[in-house]
C-alpha cells in the first residue's frame, strides 16, 4: 500500500493510512483490524492502558513511512559509550556521507557541532555535550533521545512515551517544542492531561483495538474513563488506619 497517496482530505495530503491491519507476534495477537488515517498537519495522541498495543501501532506507522519520520522509541536506543553530541548527531547519519560520519567520531564536524550545541542548549544539555550518555540520569537520557529525534529534521514525529522520564513542567515544555518542530505527530502518552491539552485528535487503544478516535475538544477525563480506567499510577499510599481501630476491631 502506498503511503504517499495524493488524495487530499480536509487538512492536507495523507501521510499514513492503515486499513484493517492486524499484527500477531508468535501466537499472541497484538493488534486487530486497525483502521487509521493521518493527514499532514495533524497532532495525534495515542492513549490507552499499558500493553494495549500502542508501541506496535507506532511501529506499523513507522514501517509505512520510515523516510520522513523522526522516531523516538521508548527504549531510547542510545549508545552508552558515545557522548551526548554523538548520540544527537546520529539523527543526521542518513544525510551525512560515510567518510565525514567516520571523521566526525574523531573530530566533530564544525557545522554540525554548532547546530547541536544550540540544540543541546535548548534541551538543557549544554554542559553535558561531551559526557558519555551512560553517565546521564534517566531524564537526561530521554532529552538526548529527543535531541536525536529533533536532529532528524523531518516533518513527521513518531514518539513512544517521549517525555515519560522528565518532570511534569519539563514534560509540558518539551512536548510543546516537539509538536512545534514537526508538522505532523503521532505520540503515545501515558499522561491524559498532556494528551487532552496539546493534541487535536485522540486515539484510544484498548486490547489491540481502536475504541475511540475523536477530536480532543470533544473529550474530557470522565469520557476517557468510560473507555478505560487509568492504570493505577503510584499514588500516595492510603493512610494507614489508626492502630487503635485495629486493636478493637471486634467492637
Amino acid at each position, binding site marked *: 500500500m502506498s503511503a504517499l497517496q495524493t488524495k487530499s482530505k480536509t487538512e492536507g495530503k495523507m501521510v499514513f493510512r492503515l486499513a484493517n491491519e492486524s499484527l500477531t507476534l508468535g501466537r499472541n495477537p497484538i493488534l486487530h483490524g486497525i483502521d487509521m488515517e493521518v493527514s499532514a498537519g495533524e497532532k495525534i495522541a495515542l492513549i490507552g492502558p499499558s500493553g494495549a498495543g500502542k508501541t506496535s501501532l507506532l511501529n506499523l506507522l513507522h514501517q509505512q513511512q520510515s523516510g520522513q519520520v523522526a522516531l523516538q522509541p521508548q527504549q531510547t*536506543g542510545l549508545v552508552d559509550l558515545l*557522548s551526548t553530541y554523538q548520540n544527537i548527531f546520529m539523527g543526521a547519519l542518513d544525510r551525512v556521507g560515510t567518510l565525514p560520519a567516520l571523521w566526525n567520531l574523531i573530530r566533530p564536524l564544525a557545522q554540525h557541532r554548532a547546530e547541536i550545541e544550540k540544540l543541546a542548549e535548548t534541551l538543557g544539555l549544554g554542559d553535558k555535550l561531551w559526557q558519555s550518555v551512560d553517565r546521564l540520569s534517566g531524564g537526561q537520557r530521554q532529552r538526548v533521545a529527543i535531541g536525536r529525534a529533533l536532529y532528524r529534521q523531518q516533518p513527521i514525529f513518531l514518539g513512544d512515551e517521549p517525555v515519560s522520564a522528565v518532570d511534569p513542567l519539563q514534560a509540558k515544555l518539551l512536548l510543546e517544542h516537539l509538536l512545534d518542530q514537526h508538522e505532523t505527530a503521532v505520540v503515545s502518552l501515558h499522561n491524559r492531561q498532556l494528551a487532552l491539552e496539546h493534541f487535536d485528535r485522540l486515539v484510544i487503544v484498548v486490547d489491540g483495538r481502536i475504541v475511540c478516535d475523536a477530536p480532543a475538544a470533544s473529550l474530557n477525563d470522565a469520557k476517557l474513563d468510560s473507555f478505560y480506567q487509568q492504570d493505577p499510577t503510584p499514588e500516595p499510599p492510603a493512610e494507614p488506619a489508626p492502630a487503635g481501630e485495629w486493636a478493637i476491631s471486634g467492637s
Partner: protein
Amino acid sequence: MISQLFKPRGNSSARALNAVCGLLILLALLALPWADIEVYSVDPWIELGRIGRGLVMPYWDGWQILLQAVGQTIAFALLAVAMAVPLGLALAMLFHWRAVRIFCASIRSVHELFWGLIFMQVYGLSATTGLLAILVPFTGVFAKVFAEIFEQQDRAPAETLGSGARGIKRYAYTLIPQSWPALTSYTRYRFECALRSSAILGFIGLPTLGFHLETAFKQGDYSEAGALLWAFILLIATIRFWLRPRLLPIYILGAIWLLPETIGFSNGGYLWQFISQDIWPKALLAGQWSEAADWYAGMFSSQVWPGIVQTLLLTQLALVLTAIVVLFTYPFASQALAGPVMRWPGRFLLLVLRSMPEMILAFVFLLLFGPSGLPAVLALALHNGGLIAFLVANASDAEFGSRLGRPDDPGGLKRYAYLETPRRFPAMLAFLFYRWEVILRESAIMGILGIATLGFYIDSAFEEIRYDRAFLLILATALLNILVDAVSRRLRRAAGADTPQPGRTH
C-alpha cells in the same frame, strides 16, 4: 586508531578506555624496534602455495594411524578434564584461603608444555606425563573460574540456611545448583582447550595429533599435514554433537583403553631426588652462598632477563595486533553487519582461527617467515583475535533484534562505527585483558619453536639436562605471568571495562 575512536573530552566513560588503549598502543610502538620480528625467508609465497595445496587436497594413507592419533588426543583431554573438574571444584570451595589462591595461581601460571617437560623427566614419555601436564594447570584454572562463578551467584539462598550448615553442605545445596549451567558450560569450553593442549603435547613427543603434524610439516608432506589439520578442526567444530553427558562413562572407559601403553612409573626415590637435588644449583646445595649468588646473577643476565624482555615485547605486540584483528574480523561474523547468511563464511573463518592452537599456527608461519618473533606474534594475534571476535560477534547477534535496537538504526559502516563497536568495546577490552595472561604464557612457550622467548631457554636447559636452570627459568616465567595478571586486573578496573561472564576467555 582505536584510541581515537571515541572523543576523549569531558566527563566521559570513553576517556578512561581511551587512556588505557593509548597506553597499550604506545607500549607496542615502543616495543617494535626492540622485538626480533624480521622476515628471514626470501620467498614465503612458494611455500605458502604448497601448504595451501596441501590444505585443499589433504591426503593420508594410513587411516588407522590418523584415527589413533585423534583418539589419543581426545583420551588425554577427556581424562585430564574429568580429573581436573572435581579437584578444581574442591579448591574453588576453599578459594577464600589465601594459600589456596596462591597455589592455584602458581600451578596455572606454568604452561601445559612446561609441565609436560617437567613430568617427562620423572615419568618419561608416558600416559602419566600427558595426563598430568594437562591436569595440573587445568585444576588451577578451574578453581579460579569456578570460584568467580560462585562469587556472582545470589547470596540469598545461602543466607536462609542455618549457620550450622557450612562448607560442602552449603555448596551442595545452594551455590553448585545455582551455578550449574555456568559450571557445565565453562567445563565444556575448557574441554575444547584441553583438546588443543593435548594436540600440542605432540610437539614434545606424546603420540597426539601435534606429533604427526610436526613430522608431516618437517618432511614437507603438506597433504598429510592438511589431513591432520582438517581432522583437528572437524574434531573441535563437532564437539557439541558428540560430547553428550550421558555418553561420558563410555567415553572415559574408551579413553582409558586408548591411552598409550607406557604407564610411566617412577619410584618415589627418584621423584624426591628430582625435587630435592636436581632442580637446585650445586653451589646452593653445597652451601656455597657466594658461588650460588654468582650462579644466579649469571643466569639472570644471560638468560632470565633477555628471555623476559623478548617475551614481554612479543606479548605486547601480539596484544595490540589481536585487538586490530578483532576490530577487522568481528563485523564479518555478525548478523547486524554481515547479514544473516553472509555471516557464515566469517563465522567459519573465526572458528578455524580459534580452533587452531597458537603453536601450530606459529609452526606454519615459521616455515614461511623464518625463525623470528614475527610468526609468534601473527599466530597469537590470529588465534586470540579469532576467539575474541567470535565472542564479540555473538554478543552483537544476541542484541540484534532486541529491545535496544531501533527501526531507524543506521546500516553498514556507519552502524559499525556508531553502534556496534562502541557498544561492544568495553566487553572486547575486558576479553582482551583476560586474554593477556594467556598470550603471555603462550609467547613464552613459543620459545620451544626456536624463538628467543623464555621457552627457548627452558627448552635448551631441559635438552642439556640442566634442571637447575630449567627450574629457575620456569619460576621466572610463572612469576612474570602472575605479575601480568595483576597488572591486567588493575588496568581492567581503571578502564572501567565491564566484566563479561568469567571463563570463556581464560
